Structure formats: C-alpha cells, structure tokens
C-alpha cells in the first residue's frame, strides 16, 4: 500500500505526528468533526431505508387503523370502529385461539426435536458432519416451496405416505391429511415446520452447547454427577441465553404463521386452521378493508412488543 500517492489535499489525516510537541487542537477537533460527518454520510442510505420503509409504514399502519380505509377510494376517519369491530369478528376470535394453540404446540415440539438433534451431533465423531448437513438441508428450500412439497408428499394422489400407512395397516381407505380434519391439518403443518426448521434451531442450540467449556463438564464428572444431573445442573443453566433466543424466535415465528396454512391447509377445514396473519390478509385483500386489517395488525404488534420487552427484561436480569 506504500506505493499509493498521498492524497492531494492531505486533510484526511486523522493521526497527528507523534513527535509534534503540541498537537494542534483545533485541527484535531476539526478532523474528528469531519470524520463524524463522514460516518453519518455512510450511514445515510441505512437511515433513508429504515426511515422510509420501516418508520413511515409503522406510523402509517397506526394512522390507517383509525380510518375506514377501502382498498380503492378515499379514507375517512372512523375512530374507534376498527378496534371495536375486532371484538365482534368471530373469525378473529377463532384465529387468535388457533394461533395460540399452534404456537404452544409448535414451540414445545420444535424445541424438543431441535435440542435432541443438537445433543446428537454435539460431539465430534465420524459421520457427524453428514448428519448435520442432512438436518440443515431442508433449510435451503424456501418455506413456500417446502409447503408445496409437503402438499404433494401428504396427498393421496401422488404422495407415498398414505400408501405406506395403508400397507402397514395404520389407516384404511382414503385419508386427506391436509384438509380431512382440523387435527390432521394442524399435524401436517407441524410436521412440515419441524422438517424445515429443526435443523436451523439445532444449529443455534449447538453453538450454545459448544460454548460451554469442557472443564465444567470435567468438574461435574469429578464431583460424581450422573449424566442427567450434569445435563440439568450444568448444561441447561449455562445454555439459558441461547435457549431464550431460540424460544423467542420460535414463539414469534409461530404467532406470525402464514405460508404453511395458506398453502398447505388453505386455513381449512372450516377455517379451523386460519391463523391471525391469514385473517389480516383476508381483511385487507379479500374484504378490501385495509383499516380493519391495520387495526388487527396494531393489536398483534402491541402483543409482540410487550412480549419482546418482557423477554429482554428477563434475559437482562439473569445475565
């Protein structure tokens, strides 16, 4: 780099010469200020993007929730109709109940499977690299594509699952997994999400597991702790931040579920697998009532922000 010619103006030199008896303070303050301006300049594209496409819409969605806002045509103020109507909307009530139920089941299932996989591939031994890759590979497939994949896989027309189960005598006759009953539709979506996201969560839990120093386990062993005791008293407490992170992501992701139900179950049968985000979409683009969609969005947003703040508080207190 020494071949580079010095810049013509020479003003971009923040380092005062070390042998200078008294660094020219005015010059340094000016340099610091111009460096700050330069930093702000580099941050401008980020600020514009965040401001225009995040902060403005955030305010706008609140503003929209106060109006009767048809998809086409001029909005008119109607406070607080959009909010009071949420309570009367039967679909919202059933979607809230379903989304909460799904979130609980999915978080528990996904956490147990992901933790199991992480423990399985924790130690370096032969073949572990292959196993990790196998569990991670579904992550490479887009979620919408994965939903379509499972639609075919679980279908009676070309899917092998029903044939297989018929052969071993678990079911007989025609079974429609994705739309037959609300339980099997929910189960289908959960199997899909497990397949697609278990590897991702495994990877994050794995980094937490590997951050625990070996000496800690060594000490536990010397103290005569059993495997289960070590797991309960050493692994779990030391993993707490990672576990909190993974659980937060699982809960947030489940509360915002859309693709899997929109594509796999179409929200059916009889709207029994219609999630909250699906209701927002329906209000906005099928019932063409953006104001109502905005009001439900704001309510959902409030719940999530409260949840995140509580979670952050818990994390901070413990660490």
């Amino acid at each position: 780099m020494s071949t580079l010619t010095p810049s013509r103006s020479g003003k971009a030199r923040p380092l005062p010469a070390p042998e200078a008896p008294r660094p020219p303070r005015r010059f340094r303050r000016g340099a610091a200020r111009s460096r700050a301006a330069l930093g702000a300049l580099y941050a401008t594209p980020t600020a514009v993007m965040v401001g225009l496409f995040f902060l403005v819409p955030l305010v706008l969605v609140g503003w929209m929730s106060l109006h009767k806002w048809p998809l086409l045509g001029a909005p008119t103020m109607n406070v607080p109709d959009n909010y009071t109507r949420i309570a009367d909307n039967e679909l919202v009530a059933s979607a809230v109940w379903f989304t909460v139920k799904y979130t609980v089941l999915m978080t528990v299932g996904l956490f147990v499977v992901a933790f199991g996989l992480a423990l399985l591939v924790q130690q370096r031994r032969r073949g572990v690299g292959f196993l990790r890759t196998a569990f991670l590979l579904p992550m490479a497939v887009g979620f919408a594509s994965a939903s379509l994949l499972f639609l075919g896989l679980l279908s009676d027309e070309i899917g092998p699952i029903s044939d297989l189960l018929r052969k071993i005598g678990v079911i007989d006759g025609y079974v429609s997994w994705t739309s037959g009953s609300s339980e099997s539709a929910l189960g289908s979506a959960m199997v899909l999400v497990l397949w697609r996201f278990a590897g991702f969560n495994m990877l994050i839990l794995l980094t937490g597991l590997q951050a625990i120093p070996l000496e800690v386990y060594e000490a536990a062993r010397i103290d005569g702790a059993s495997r289960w005791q070590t797991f309960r008293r050493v692994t779990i407490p030391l993993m707490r931040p990672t576990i909190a992170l993974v659980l937060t992501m699982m809960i947030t992701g489940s509360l915002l579920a859309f693709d899997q139900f929109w594509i796999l179950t179409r929200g059916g049968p009889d709207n029994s697998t219609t999630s909250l985000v699906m209701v927002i979409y329906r209000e906005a683009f099928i019932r063409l009532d953006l104001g109502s969609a905005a009001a439900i969005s704001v309510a959902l947003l409030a719940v999530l922000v409260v949840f995140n703040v509580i979670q952050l508080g818990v994390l901070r207190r413990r660490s």
Partner: protein
Amino acid sequence: MTRSSLAGRWGYYVTGTALAILFLSPLLWSGWASLRTGTGFGLENYDRLFTSDNGIRVHHVVNSLTVSALTVAGTLLVATLGGYAFGRFRFPGRDLLFLLTLAILMVPYATILIALYVLLGWIGLQDSLIGLSLVLIMFQLPFSIFMMRNSFEAVPRELEESAQVDGCNSVSTLLRIMLPAVKPGLVTVGLFAFLTSWSEFFAPLILLNSTDQFTTTLAVVNMRTASHGSIDYAALEAGVVFMAVPCLLLFAFMQRSYVRGFTSGALKG
C-alpha cells in the same frame, strides 16, 4: 472396548442414520416425483409446469432473477456503507439508528406490509419489482447491518491507519483495504439476500397484483391456490424442484458462509 459402549455406538449410528433418512427423504421424493411420468421417467411434468394454462412462464423466472439481483445488490451496498459507518465511525445518532435497524426484527412482517402496500402506491411503485426489492432490502437490513458491523469491527485498526498514513482517503480505504478484509461477511450477506428474495412468498403476494409481475414462487403457489378443480401435483413438485435446485446448489458449495450467517446472531446475542 466394553460391550455397553459398543452397543451405545451402534445405537448412535442407527438413530442418526434413521433421522438423516427421515430428513432427506422428502427432498429425494420430490425429485423422484417430479421426474415420474405415467409410463416411466421423463421431463413431462416440467413441460407441463411451463406450458399448462396456470403454469409458470419464462417472464416469471426473469422477474424472480430481477428481484433477486436488485435485492442482493441493494443489500450489499446499503449494508457495506452502513456496516462501515457503525463499525468504524462515531457520529451523533449512531446507536439510535443501529437500534432502530435491529427493531425491524421485532415488528411482524404482516403489520408493515399492509402500510407498505399503500405507501408504495403513493410513490408510484405499486405492483412493481423495484418496490418489492426495496421492501426486501429493508427486511434484510437488521441481519446484514449487524453482520457487516461486526465484520468491519474485526478488521485490525493498524490496517486502516497504515492506509491513511499512506494517504488513502476514507473511500479508497474502504474499497482497497476494508472490502477485501470483510469479504466473508459480504458473501454471507449476499447469500442470505439471494435466498430470501428468491424464495420469498408473503411480500410479493401482497405487493404484486398482476400475474405478469409475479415471481416464480408466486406463480408456482398460484398453481395450487388458483386451481378450482384438481391440482396437478406432479407439475407442482417439478416447480418445487425448479425453485429449490439453485438454493440447494448454493448450500452445497457455500455451507461455511451459511453456518456463519446462522450462528453469528446466536454467538453475539
């Protein structure tokens, strides 16, 4: 070796193999199902994918490539400049802007998309691939800025200082010294921007209205959701494979960048 540890090893490998088969089989099955025809194996399903009435068209693929290219380029540009600013400069409002960028993660997608639909209409970007790309760039920013800030912070100070002593201004320092040093971060950010934009479903569903503007994902899903009669499952699986192959190839060749992306947040957070 004792008998019990031998049994343990066997148990481990049997469990591991069974689970690996369980995770790999849906992928293998979709490839198989997409190639199976009434009489044997062939490309008939792919043919129907591209020719049937509600199938996908070449311009859908072009749309997807356009959105991906714009998103990757835009994300790299904004995240490089932003990461440089956050990692190497002090300026008023720096921490606030960084927190606001991360806050994008806390706000559900669906919430702002309804408003973005209206906003893009106001600025003349309704039903536009550019508008969609801008939104996708914004959603990539928390991860990308975080990643690039950490990358820039990890570059030794001496490297930058020696460049400045040699007379580089901040732009040429960035281009000649810093960019080569943060290349792994750039690769990861670019990779994730591509994968997200290529596979994204919900944002294009809301922001694109006309079938001409549809991305491939939207067009393939449309084969399922717009069908009133029976679904052509075999052509659908062909669509799944068509969408997944580029991502699987990238995964195969860039697993290291992938894993770095997934774990960077967990390690630091």
